[in-house]
């Protein structure tokens, strides 16, 4: 699995309109719905599951990034959406710092192992300060895709 396989151009928001956690999650879920990554019937349930997850424990893992995530049967295949906030969002993050990059990850309900692989992929990049900084500065979907292609080396298409 590669990031470029689960992230499409349409699923990158270079400037989130919303300045709240819930609003940002909803915006990102809407672009995945528009990109046909989930069924419209599942949309409400997934949104609710994502927000409940945040209420039970923030996915703001610190250092300006948050990774809301959910496994759900309405999800067709593992899909990532990335949103950037220049102002910073209050995710009640572990380090209490504002979140500038939100990576929303959805996986089908049945495959826990593949979900963990996707998380590994996301965090493998996020734990590098260089990647986090570049993501925070990437001001267009193209810049995000180029950053990811760069991390994947010459194999990336």
């Amino acid at each position, binding site marked *: 699995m590669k990031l470029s396989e689960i992230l499409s151009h349409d699923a990158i928001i270079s400037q989130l309109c919303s300045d709240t956690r819930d609003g940002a999650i909803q915006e990102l879920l809407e672009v995945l719905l528009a990109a046909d990554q989930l069924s419209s019937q599942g949309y409400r349930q997934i949104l609710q599951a994502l927000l409940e997850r945040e209420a039970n424990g923030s996915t703001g893992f*610190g250092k300006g990034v948050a990774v809301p995530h959910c496994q759900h049967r309405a999800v067709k295949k593992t899909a990532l959406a990335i949103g950037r906030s220049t102002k910073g969002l209050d995710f009640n993050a572990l380090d209490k710092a504002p979140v500038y990059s939100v990576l929303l990850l959805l996986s089908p309900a049945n495959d826990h192992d593949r*979900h963990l692989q996707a998380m590994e992929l996301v965090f493998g990049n996020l734990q590098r300060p260089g990647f986090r900084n570049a993501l925070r500065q990437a001001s267009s979907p193209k810049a995000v895709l180029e950053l990811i292609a760069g991390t994947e080396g010459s194999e990336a298409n």
Partner: protein
Amino acid sequence: MTQETSADRREITKQVKIPNSLGLHARPAMQLVDLANRFEASLQIAKGNQLVDAKSIMQVMTLAATQGTKLTLSATGPDATQALAAMAELIAEGFGEE
């Protein structure tokens, strides 16, 4: 001032296996990191050749430890033994999951 003894510097290890069906996903990873941070000892988790800091959520999330994955916990420091026992117990209980 505390005096460091040779016992403080000795690394101890413990093998564990992930029992719950969802594996080491975000919630259990955070439980484990929270627990690790309560100890003074330096704590690491290895999966094969991959070695991560047990006190860093970002690093622990890169383990992708699925059900049945074998991990090696290692600890160095004054409360190393207690830390490993507590971490191994949390893992053995499947983080309160099935």
